[in-house]
């Protein structure tokens, strides 16, 4: 399949390109930018007038719910939804059932994912057996099966000695460890930020110190173990300050934030909306402002969707009983664009945070539009606003805090490995 994308606004943050240039694709790779290679005859010409042509998005956390949670969503449905969101590579956390703690499970997931259209899937291996925080996994075997990093998903390791050893063992092979900063005791029963809204609604609180104490432990253990750590889903101003200081010290630390946390605060829980029940919780306006500032100054390296499709039966419950999480793969681009618009950042900066930077953190050759690179692209209209509805979301999870609202940025084409995996008819 040879594709010629013409008249599009090409944006590649890695090379600093932002100009109208044509792209030529053949045999799964980009073979020309601006100028067609000799003897190029396209099977398909895409007129990208008015569209942005950028590297396909890389999502650092998307739950595909397989194996084990097919009643919430399926691999097929969520891969399709991710492609519709412009995502061409994604990392899936190991909190499946059973968890991704054995090479066979990882191979099976990769094999299943490869057999259907949609993004490239990178399973993150479990750091401990069954995610129980007791016994470390066969990380080298898991790495051979395709795991590029190891994590506990949402489950914190209670025993700090196990955490230290897991980090030491990972550091032996220089495998990155992805950790959510959550103190197991301080988050107990909590469902909402420990602030004025939780006080008013009587919701069991999750204090900021549950994040900062766990983060302090991680940072100190990085120093003694030499492990490379990616900190997942920061939520508080205090934690961001700690990351900033650790980076200034030269620690090999990266971090990300859930795209929802760029916009929402504790106030959005308002009338017990279970779609605003996420981990970490939406915090105060000051915390949200700190997240935005940390994106601007580079303290936060990447934005992810933390996609968690949840079925209605698990969401339409009293707030504290509802399953946490929000569907996100189709909102990663729009909500990042909305942030960029609101804070005066250009498209290139926005795209960088959801393509090049996460690709670097994951360690994959994506997030770039270069001759010779794999042809993973996203074409979107930045000026089209669309309404988030149960119908407009392709994910089986309809659990979005943005239901009913309009968001900017509509994906028109998603090209993965040189194939058009998603195409939206020109309506708008």
């Amino acid at each position, binding site marked *: 399949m040879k594709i010629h994308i013409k008249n599009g606004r090409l944006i590649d943050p890695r090379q600093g390109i932002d100009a109208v240039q044509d792209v030529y694709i053949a045999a799964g790779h980009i073979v020309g930018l601006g100028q067609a290679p000799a003897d190029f005859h396209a099977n398909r010409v895409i007129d990208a007038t008015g569209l942005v042509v950028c590297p396909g998005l890389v999502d650092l956390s998307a739950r595909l719910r397989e194996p084990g949670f097919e009643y919430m969503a399926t691999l097929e449905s969520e891969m399709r939804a991710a492609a519709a969101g412009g995502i061409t590579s994604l990392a899936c956390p190991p909190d499946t059932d059973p968890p991704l703690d054995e090479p066979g499970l990882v191979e099976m997931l990769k094999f299943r994912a490869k057999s259907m259209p949609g993004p490239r899937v990178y399973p993150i291996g479990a750091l401990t057996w069954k995610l129980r925080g007791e016994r470390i996994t066969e990380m080298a075997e898991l790495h051979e099966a395709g795991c590029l990093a190891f994590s506990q998903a949402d489950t914190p390791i209670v025993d700090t000695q196990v955490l230290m050893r897991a980090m030491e063992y990972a550091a032996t092979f220089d495998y990155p460890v992805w950790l959510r900063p959550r103190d197991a005791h301080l988050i107990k029963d909590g469902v909402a930020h420990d602030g004025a809204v*939780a*006080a*008013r609604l*009587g919701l069991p609180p999750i204090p900021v110190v549950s994040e900062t104490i766990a983060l302090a432990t991680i940072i100190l253990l990085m120093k003694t173990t030499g492990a490379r750590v990616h900190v997942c889903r920061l939520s508080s101003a205090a934690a961001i300050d700690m990351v900033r200081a650790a980076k200034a010290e030269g620690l090999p630390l990266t971090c990300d934030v859930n795209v929802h946390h760029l916009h929402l605060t504790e106030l959005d829980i308002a009338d017990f909306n279970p779609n605003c029940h996420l981990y970490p919780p939406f915090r105060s306006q000051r915390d949200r402002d700190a997240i935005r500032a940390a994106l601007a100054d580079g303290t936060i390296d990447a934005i992810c969707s933390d996609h968690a499709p949840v079925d209605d039966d698990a969401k*339409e*419950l009293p707030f504290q009983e509802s399953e946490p999480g929000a569907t996100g793969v189709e909102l990663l681009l729009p909500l990042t664009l909305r942030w960029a618009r609101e804070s005066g950042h250009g498209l290139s900066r926005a795209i960088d945070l959801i393509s090049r930077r996460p690709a670097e953190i994951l360690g994959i050759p994506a997030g770039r539009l270069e001759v010779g690179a794999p042809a993973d692209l996203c074409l979107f209209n930045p000026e089209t606003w669309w309404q988030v509805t149960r119908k407009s979301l392709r994910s089986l999870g309809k659990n979005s805090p943005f239901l009913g609202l309009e968001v900017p940025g509509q994906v028109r084409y998603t090209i993965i490995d040189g194939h058009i995996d998603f195409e939206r008819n020109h309506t708008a």
Partner: protein
Amino acid sequence: MTPDLQLNPDGSLRHLLSLDGLPARILTQILDTAEGFLSVSEQEVKKVPLLRGKAIFNLFFEPSTRTRTTFEIAAKRLSADVVNLNISASSQSKGETLLDTVANLSAMHADMFIVRHSSAGAAHLIARHVAEHIRVMNAGDGRHAHPTQGLLDMFTIRHYKGGFHNLRIAIVGDILHSRVARSQINALTTLGCPELRVVAPKTLLPREVEAMGVHVYHRLEEGIKDVDVVMMLRLQNERMQGALLPSPQEYFKYWGLTPEKLKLAKPDAIVMHPGPMNRGVEIDSDVADGKQSVILPQVTYGIAVRMAVMSILAGN
């Protein structure tokens, strides 16, 4: 909060879920209506036909004999048909969801649901999903709200003190876990109480509670100094020993209301308690049974206030 869910488009009361965000005129309307119902309970035939033919379902997802009984009596005095369901013991254990239970009962032509649930927001969830004609009354949801208790407390204060505008009021005890305290705070700030205090150790106070419009005190002696009303809260047994409090004895010594400590309040101060009381833990028997106690009248007024809310919700 969510006045749209609680109020009809014309501004009248549709559901009673929380006192947070309800305008003063609605609170006053309920209290005024309750005045009229006080006499019903004193008649020989304690019944009026206002809710004849209406089906009221007591949906108690959390066990409570006392509160359920007060709602049942109120409904029966209004001539409604009352059905009591203790759901913790039946459907929930069979895996039926909250909304399925409600949908099934709606199909039995219920007119009103009185809901008690251990999770905050349960009554809101039900109100959001019931048919147009069904009314929902919150009888306590987690730590969030217990609006009829808050209203009967307001009725009691107004009865003894004539109003709210010149009062200094202290709420003492486990504010953190108390839906009663939250409803009291919402009502008192709406009705114009100029000085509202909460008194508790730090472990029993929510963070940023000041944002609700209260002054925080940690010492009982300072908190009840010169107040007109002392509202005591019940301390749950399971919270008396552990990481929140060391022992009931120490709690009583520092936060229990004794006759000596009560002397710090105004001489005509009244003492309230939502019940059931832990004598010798949060309140001394001499205070509970003393001249300044209005704890039993609270119970009596509770029936009238619940009758008032039911009759207003039913459109009378």
